[in-house]
């Protein structure tokens, strides 16, 4: 249980940005990437996201599982797109350049380009999300949310949730081991159905114990006057710095570039075949 998922302290550029600036940048870049179907733009975004991930000094061990799961999911998605809409790219770009065979399942350059773009969307968004999650102190983030107008009870709920992720992981680990020892097969050796029933059992236990904890925590917070006034202050309040301004301008610039490309292309799609 060495690799807990969530905020890790550090000294990188990303750690120094304020939580709210990071959230805005994350949203700006994600929106740009989701809207655009210009492969040049998506490639650039992916390169930036991956460079960022490297810069943020997040260890592979910590993110391995989520990366593998996402890649599997992405590949599955690509295969399914091909199975259900093998000529969607042709429909999109209005031309048909065959690579392999002919007929309804013929492989075309257009389809390949389309699927490459879908893959890139996964490839840029996952690193962005990971950077955000691993470098943002939940308290600073809540303070930031509250600052941009989100009610403090909602903002605080975010902190509490993030703060309980490691706890819940630890508890999951303990319950799993105890039940394995008892004889429920949840280990690598067991079959898929056994694993699934096992995990469902653990999760039910975990949910009940978490609900109990929520009750206790709520009471503990009220006893320390949470919810007393209309406003509250934040120990980890951060003021916007130069770094935040620069980062925000860069992110905005990137969005403008995306919109600019759309205007030049007269569409969200860049068509290299025309």
């Amino acid at each position: 249980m060495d690799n807990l998922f969530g905020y890790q302290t550090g000294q990188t550029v990303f750690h120094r940005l304020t939580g709210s600036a990071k959230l805005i940048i994350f949203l700006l870049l994600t929106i740009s990437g989701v809207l655009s179907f210009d492969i040049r733009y998506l490639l650039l975004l992916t390169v930036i996201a991956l460079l960022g991930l490297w810069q943020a000094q997040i260890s592979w061990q910590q993110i391995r599982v989520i990366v593998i799961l996402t890649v599997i999911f992405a590949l599955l998605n690509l295969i399914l797109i091909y199975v259900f809409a093998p000529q969607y790219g042709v429909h999109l770009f209005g031309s048909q350049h065959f690579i392999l065979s002919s007929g309804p399942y013929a492989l075309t350059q257009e389809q390949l380009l389309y699927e490459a773009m879908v893959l890139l969307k996964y490839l840029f968004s996952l690193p962005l999300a990971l950077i955000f999650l691993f470098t943002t102190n939940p308290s600073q983030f809540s303070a930031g949310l509250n600052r941009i107008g989100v009610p403090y009870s909602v903002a605080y709920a975010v902190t509490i949730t993030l703060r309980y992720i490691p706890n819940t992981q630890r508890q999951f680990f303990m319950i799993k081991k105890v039940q394995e020892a008892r004889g429920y097969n949840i280990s690598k050796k067991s079959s898929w159905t056994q694993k699934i029933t096992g995990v469902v059992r653990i999760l039910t236990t975990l949910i009940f114990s978490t609900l109990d904890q929520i009750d206790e925590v709520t009471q503990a917070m009220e006893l320390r006057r949470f919810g007393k006034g209309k406003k509250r202050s934040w120990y980890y309040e951060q003021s916007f710095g130069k770094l935040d301004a620069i980062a925000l301008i860069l992110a905005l610039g990137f969005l403008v570039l995306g919109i600019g490309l759309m205007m030049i292309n007269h569409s969200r799609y860049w068509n290299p075949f025309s």
Partner: protein
Amino acid sequence: MMVAAALEFKGVTFKYDVQQNSTLENISLTIPKGSRTLIVGPSGSGKSTLAALLNGVIPNSEPGEVQGEIYIDGHLSNKDSIFDRSLKIGTVLQNPDTQFVGMTVAEDIAFVLENDNDSHDQLVTKVKEWAQRLRLEELLDLAPQVLSGGQKQRVAMAGVLAGDSPILLFDEPLASLDSASGQAMLTLLDELQAELGLTVVIIEHRVEDVLRHTVDQVVVLQEGEVAYQGSAAELLKRSILPDYGLANPKYIQSLQDLGYPLDELEQIDDVQKVTGPNLKNYLERDLARQMSQSVETTSPILTIKDLSYQYQNHTVFSNINFTLHQGEWLSLVGSNGAGKSTLSRLLAGFLPMQTGEIRLNQEPEVDLSQVTLKERADYIGYVAQNPVEMLIETTVFGEVAAGLRLRGVDDNKITAEVQEYLKWANLYEIRNWPVNVLSFGQKKRLSILSVAILQPKILILDEPTAGQDYQHAQQLMTLLQKLNQSGMTIVMVTHDVNIMQEWTSRVLAFHQGRLIADTTPGELLANQELVALAELCQPTDYILAQRLGVTVGKGGKRG
């Protein structure tokens, strides 16, 4: 002019909406300003309800009907909101982990001030001030979860004290602390109370630990009524606690066992000062009796060689060597973070082996590194501290039976065995109840059964008596005794010196990841240096004996 009491209850009766009968019945209490009151009572006596009435959790979050009058600082406060109450009464909760909301110590201390909407400068100044008072300056940037038990408790106190409430309510503050940290916390509380003129109310079942510090008033609750209200001295002299299923302090117990007349003692409530005619002679007789006990050695069952464990480049423990024998009952003691829990999990196979060896001494040889966790559980069983993490079935019977069912044991045999075990644990009558309605103590015993039913050679328990009152702890220990008598070797991590001394025959003491003693409880407790290193406290009967110049501990139970 009359000074208003800090707290006053006048004929307070309380009934939860969901219950038929009232939980508290006609409670009248006066708690003077600046005093310290200890509230004790068996589980279900209404202690927690009384606490909730004080801090406003009732009726704010738990609806019910309050009759009578509650005065706080002279004002009738029945209708005050939980926030109004919190300005007057700060509550330190039983489990600091549930109280922590901040990501760091600093933020957690600041929590109440943030909710008061103090300015950022004030937050920083006040946090610094309280951190200094409670010796937390070095820890401000750490997550509260990584601290030791004693440090956590200090953070929890700082987080409440920062709110400037003149009355402090502690709900079982010692439950999750080893005895040395408990004493340190109470000493700190003594200082703060004097300095700030606080009124302190402590609800606690570890009566002995609290009474080692000055207590102005003791209140005993029984079935929702005040059964005793008066001085600690009177309480001990009349030996009232045992009538309500609570334990007398150890030195009082020993003197009683020896037939010493308690009413002849002077300053009975202070083990450092208590005197009486012929006291020393009586104690010397007791010692002779203890020394005559011995335990025979049996065959080795598990050998541990050069065991080390690291976690994120930090050594949890290193080069641990010891051998367990058939039918032994051991305690593992040491401060929080000394490596006891990690060692237990490693033995149970919950953590991967790093360096060293754990070998079962049996023919044919079983290589523990090659078996699944399920197979390992037939040799070494592990009971976690929190029963919630262990119970996943719907009924009490099903919970105990699960392990056997998953091993394909014949149904008739399962029924017979499970029923016998349930009887041992006093759970037979409720065998068809759903698990989630059981009390904490019942869940705890059930979680032990769910592992013990597999009849492992060795049963490991992480703090089995934590958070339980004397009676429940005794029931649990009786269950373990039955298992032990059936031939099971029992290893338990514990903080409770009285439990260690009373029930176990051998103790392994840890300090900063090293095994510093492998001896009998008697010898360990007689050695003040080891006691300090293991962050234990000498039991009060030892303190008394040593103060009177009676030498203890030579020989010990294992002889």
